[in-house]
């Protein structure tokens, strides 16, 4: 079995699209992340949902969990409001650490698993000729791996 067999159709979003649009897409379709494409259509990054949260929640709250309890409902609205007017590009780390969560359609299950483990990404984009074929999600990959056990 290869990556192509496990890949599901998956939505993508442009680098310069609105950050809120990406967040809404993830919330609406219960996606752990979303594939990000350059203006020429090349998929180059994965935007995990956790990165959206990391952007919306200021580092000082992340540093001091006690403050998370102190901030009221209006405070949460204000934090999420920070996504207004932002682009997907702004949400992504400027210098991605490590490899990107992508593989080729002919990659084996284990190769896909290695990419997922190494990048800590819940999904791996399957890319062929600079175009997105689909994505392998963690549940689908585990399903396939456990079936072999």
């Amino acid at each position, binding site marked *: 079995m290869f990556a192509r067999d496990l890949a599901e159709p998956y939505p993508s979003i442009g680098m310069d699209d609105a950050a809120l649009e990406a967040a809404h897409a993830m919330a609406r379709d219960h996606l752990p992340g979303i594939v990000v494409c350059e203006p020429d259509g090349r998929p180059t990054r994965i935007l995990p949902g956790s990165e959206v949260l990391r952007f919306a929640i*200021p*580092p*000082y*709250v992340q*540093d*001091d969990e*006690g*403050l998370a*309890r*102190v*901030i*009221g*409902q*209006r*405070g949460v609205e*204000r934090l999420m409001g920070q996504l207004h007017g932002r682009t997907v590009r702004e949400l992504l780390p400027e210098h991605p650490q490590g490899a990107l969560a992508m593989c080729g359609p002919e990659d084996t299950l284990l190769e896909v698993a290695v990419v997922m483990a190494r990048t800590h990404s819940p999904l791996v984009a399957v890319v062929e000729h600079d175009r997105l074929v689909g994505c392998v999600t963690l549940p689908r990959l585990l399903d396939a791996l456990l079936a072999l056990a």
Partner: protein
Amino acid sequence: MAVIAIAVFATVYVLLATERVHRVKAALGGAGLLLAAGVVDFEDAFHSPETGVAWEVLFLLVGMMVIVGILRQTGVFEYVAIRAVKRAGGRPFRVLVQLVLITALASAGLDNVTTILLIAPVTLLVCDRIGVPPVPFLIAEVMASNIGGTATLIGDPPNIIIASRGDLTFNDFLVHVTPVVVVLVVALIGLCRVMFRSAFRFDPKRAAELADLDEREAITDRGLLLRASLVLTAVLVGFVLSPAIGYAPAVVALLGAGVLVLASGLGPRDYLADVEAPTLLFFAGLFVMVGALIKVGAIDRLAEWATVATGGSAQTATFVLLGTSAVLSAVIDNIPYVATMAPLVDALSRETGNPDSVLWWALALGADLGGNATVIGASANVVMLGIAERNGHRIGFWQFARYGSIVTLVTVLLCVPYLWLRYFAFA
């Protein structure tokens, strides 16, 4: 041997000043070289009260680190800060005054870096709510922390070294240093009013948002808070009664830490979270290196030279020490500076008489206050800068120095009449 000791010491100082290698590596490397070369032996390094590691300093630090580490997990600091800010009605200058007072007070009892780690996130939250730039508030706090830390024996690591070498008690600091620190904190607030005047724009709508913050939610474990508060109070009382009960501050702190560890029910990961092994090892390495200088007679020679240079006058020595310490501590870490200067001041004390330990107070005030002048003057400054930058507020070296040099100059100048009036004019 003297040449080796001085050469190793000077090399390590250059490494520390230029930050070419990590400070622990530099200090332990230097200590290792001196031991290997036979400049100091096992007895000199570990058993001698004159040249050896000052164990009471290390264990006082360990004890306080454990107590503070447990106390900070209770959320009490966030509770106090937010409550005070709410009481200020969201008016920016009043908020700054509250935060400066809390920071100065906390720094007198806690390590400065810990205080900044606790106060900075709350400050960023509050400034975001009331719609003011956080940088002036953060700068004011770190300066309050360095000033407040000067007030007590446990407020700043250099004071612990000074107390150990000068045989000074917790109460000595309360009597001789705390009064002037109170004046300095007031002066800092006045300076902030002028230096940061453009940051105090009051927006009633934004200020009203403070009401949404529920400080009671910050308290994670009321039982633990109660136990930790009781132990901290007992430890502070123990410090005050230290000479009467015959327990050194290090013993009081260790007993407090032990009791709190047992009473907290926390695991080692939690109660040891704030014990900074690198800082303790850095201290140990420094003590061995300074011990080598003492053993080869370099410190005595330097003290003789200093005595001649100051004409054997305690008054001249006091003000030279205050000024020199402030200038040098602005550019080098005040911990190695004080570790080096302490035996020198000890020797100088014998030559000049040192009325009421004034030379020690000059060293403490100069070294602690000098840390405010530049970003690299104190560890707390560097930590604050890092927090600000992570939250999108970059503070440049010269931006900090512009305010820091003013605060250092004014606070050190204020110490001059204090020291003169108290120890010389009417002595």
